[in-house]
Each structure stands twice: as C-alpha cells, then as structure tokens.
C-alpha cells in the first residue's frame, strides 16, 4: 500500500437498539497527516474508529483505506494497515507476558520466529519498555500499560495508527512521554481524544464531531482557537490557548 490514506465517505451507522451513532460522516486523511477527532461524549468518535478497521460494518457509505474500499474481503489487509490502540489497555493486553502480547500480532500475521522476535524487540525499544518484556502485563503501571499497548500495535508495522483516548488515566510525566512518542511517529495518525492540549502538541488537523457528523474540519489552531465553535459542540478552549489569550 503506497498511500496511507483513510477516506470516510458519507458513513451512517445505527446500533441495534436504534441509537444513530453516525449520520453521514465524511473525511479524508492524507498520507502522514496527524488528525484529531474531538467531540463530546456520544458524538460518535469511538463508533467511527471501530469502522476504520472493519470491526463494525458500514451500513451506508464507504470507507477506503489506502485506496482500497473496506469490505469483507479486504478487512484482513485493512487490519494490517490500521493499528488500533484501544481506550482501555487492559482489554488489549491479554497474554501472560508483555513479550508474548507484543508477539501476538506478528505471530497471527504468520511471520517466522526470528522476524517476530526482531519486531518485538524493536517495538518495545521504540516505546522504551524493553525492561518489562518478561513481566505479566497486569503488573505494570497505567503508563507502562499504555506504552506496551502501543508497542503491541507497532509490532504489526501498521501504516496508520488509530488511537482512542491515548492520554486517559495517565500521570503528567507518562502523558508527556506519550506526547513525545506520538510526535516521533511518522505514521498517519488518527487520535480520538478529549485532551485538547495533547491535540495542540501532536496534531496538525482537527475534526470536530457532534451528533454523528463532522461539524468542523481544519488546522488545529484555527479550530481549537474558535471559542464559539468549541462551546457550541460541548467543548472548550484548550488550557494552553486560554492561558495565551489571558496574557496581556
């Protein structure tokens, strides 16, 4: 796949209980771009993310990953291209040791043992977690768990990184480390978050979601600095910008 592009075209989705989660959302995220999905709770962010690796099938509309439309036949390819970091690392780390957990994806891809070992070592080194490789994941701190969860995804060498609330439950230092880590990735990134300060530091582009639609889409300072827009969609100015505005 030469172009790490994610395109969402007029996607609708309703849960079986009748909740309309997505009502015709469209966006196109280009190669190497780092985009944030922001919006209040229930805006449809997580539902959209679950569409991006084909976990939820599109009911109406189309999703294209790197110019290939997502369908039953292409979902395996899409999952290899899209690395998904889930909100709760405990859901993601289920093997007895960190190393085995990181190896889970590459082993499922059918890679030879040497390549798997190489990927595990590289992914753990990348997130600075080499020293915990033989510990059980549930013994780690929240920050370490998050880093390992990211390593499990990096080991699959995805082109596109999709993250749901990467900075939740992290202490300031772990959050800072996460931000530095995210900034160092050259992948196409899609980050759903409420941490608007993180968005300011990591992303170039912001998509505001409300009621299952994309209501605003543009450069980060333009969108996050628009107080009227932010308040209208259940958000607020990020702390960094508020402080800057407050300065004489």
């Amino acid at each position, binding site marked *: 796949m030469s172009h790490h592009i994610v395109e969402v075209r007029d996607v609708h989705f309703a849960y079986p209980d009748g909740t309309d989660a997505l009502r015709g959302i469209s966006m196109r995220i280009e190669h190497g771009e780092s985009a944030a999905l922001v919006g209040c709770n229930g805006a449809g962010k997580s539902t959209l993310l679950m569409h991006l690796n084909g976990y939820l099938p599109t009911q109406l509309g189309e999703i294209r990953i790197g110019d290939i439309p997502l369908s039953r036949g292409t979902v395996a390819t899409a999952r290899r291209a899209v690395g998904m970091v889930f909100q709760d690392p405990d859901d993601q780390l289920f093997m007895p040791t960190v190393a085995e957990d990181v190896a889970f994806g590459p082993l*499922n891809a059918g890679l030879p043992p040497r390549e798997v070992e190489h990927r595990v070592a590289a992914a753990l080194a990348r997130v600075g977690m080499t020293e915990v490789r033989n510990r059980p994941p549930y013994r780690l701190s929240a920050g370490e768990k998050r880093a390992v969860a990211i390593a499990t995804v990096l080991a699959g060498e995805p082109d596109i990184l999709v993250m749901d609330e990467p900075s939740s439950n992290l202490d300031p230092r772990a959050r800072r480390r996460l931000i530095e880590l995210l900034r160092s990735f050259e992948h196409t990134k899609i980050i759903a978050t409420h941490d608007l300060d993180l968005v300011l530091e990591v992303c170039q582009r912001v998509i505001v979601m409300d009621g299952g639609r994309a209501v605003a889409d543009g450069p980060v300072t333009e969108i996050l600095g628009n107080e009227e827009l932010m308040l209208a969609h259940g958000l607020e100015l990020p702390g960094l910008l508020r402080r800057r505005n407050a300065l004489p």
Partner: protein
Amino acid sequence: MLRRITIRCYVLPQPWRTGTAGVAGRPWREGVRSISDKDRATTGAAGTTLFMKLADWTELGRMDELACMDSPVHRLDARTKALVTLAFVAVVMSFPRREISALMPFLLYPVVLTSAGRIPARQIFRKLLVAAPFAVLVAIFNPVLDRQPVNIAGPFVMTGGWISFSSVVLRFVLTAWAALALVACTGMNRLCAGLEQLGVPRVFVVQLLFLYRYLFVVADEAAKMTRALELRSGEKRAMSLRVYGSIVGQLLLRSVDRAQRVYRAMKARGFDGEIRLPDSPRLHPADAFFAAACIAFFAAARIWNIADMLGSMLAGRPA
C-alpha cells in the same frame, strides 16, 4: 534468559498471599486496599462469599506465572504431558470402586511432577480445596447407601460405603492434582496449542482457551461490583434477593461487554482462531523417555498392588 526471569517472578512480593482486596490477580491495580482476615469477617456476608470465590480465582492467575518458569518438566512438550496426564486419569479411573491401597502409589506421579516443576504445593492444595466440594458431593451418599461391613486391616472394619467414599475422594485428589500440575508447568496457551496438534478440533481448543481467558474477565468485573456494593452497604450484612439478582444480571452484561472488547482487540491484531506460539514445539528424546517411564509405571501400578507388596515385604510375609 528464561531462567533469570523465573527467579525474579518467584521472589516478587506476593500481596495476594496475605489476602488483598485486589482484582483478579492484580491487587494494586486500583490503589492498594488491603483487607485482613479480620476485616473480611466484618464485611457483608454475601459479599464475603463472592469475595472468597474471587480470591480463589485470583490464585488461578498465578498459573500463568508458574508456567513461565523453567524446569525439566516445563521443557517437556505440551503434547507429551497432555497424553501422559490423560493416561494417568484413565488408569486411576479404571480401578474398582472400593480400591484404596492400589491407588496410593499413583500419588507418586503428581508429587514428582509438582516437585520437579518447582510448583509451590500450597498453590495446588488451595485449588484442590476449592474443587473438593464437588467430589465430596458426588460420593456423599455412598456411606448411607452401602452399609456392608468390610474388613480392612486386622480388627478394623469399615462399611463399604465409607471405603468407596474415600476412594472417590482419593481419585479426585489424584486426577485434579495431575491436571493442575499439567497446567501449572505447561501454561494454558501451550497446552491448547498442544491439544490442537494432537488433533482435538479447533472449536473445542479455542473454547477452552477463551473459557480460561474470560474467567479473569468475569472475576475482574465481579470484584469491582462486590467492592462497590460493600463500600455502600455499611453495616448491613446480608444481600437482599433483589440486589443479588441485579448484581448477577449486571455481572453477566458487563462481562459480555468486556469480553467483546477483548475479542475486538484480538481481532484487530489478526486473531483468526489459530493459536500461534513463538517457538514451534518440538519433541525431544526427553519426551519419549518421560512418556515411556510414566506409562510403564502406571501399567505396573495397575497390574500389581505396589502398596500391598511393600507392606508384605516389610512385614516379612508372602503377598
């Protein structure tokens, strides 16, 4: 490399041993809140029973750690150990219903496996205790139904019922111990992969694997709910039926949700129902030796009553 880790897992502080209000093997996950036995006695009765069950499950979580240790028994192939365990169970079950003495030599197998695998005995015994009521229930009516007196040794006479009861319990100890030792020195993932290689249909293997994985998921949710309940129930001891019903219902729904999230995460990383291991298991000469030695011993102990023979030898009279 592996050996080094082993030792490290082994000397880590083990708060679960002193009874910690944790969440399925992760006592410090949401802040450490230790509950001593005294505290436990004063918390709600219904909550306590649930908690006790959880504490036992928590011990189960240690099986994975035990399985990552290194010992000659750990190095044996999962298939060998599974087959030998199966043979062991079959032979133990094949004895007549009132047999006790001939079963005794079979204790040697789980004892050797446990000690060679350096598995702490209390790990095994606690789990045996948890499962014991089931075995006891199965045999509990034997003493009532079968009152025929049987001469056991010299002046001692027991009813046939009590003998068959003891036999059932002994068989339970033998088989459950062997199975626990198998899991403790193999690990569920390896064991399941081994079973699959042996030709057990994948549907069953994956079922088993998920049963084991989700056990912790359910225990985790239950621990959280029980804690929330205990914290808000004050001095009240008993749980009303209404609350109990809603807790059990919630537990089911929450576990289904959680299980779905875990499954989603597995899917996202390409899980397709096949269990893959980093190093493909290979049979070594040690496997053949272990299997041959065990099977020979089982056969010998099945044919001859070794305990009786030893006793006769010591007493100096012909068997």
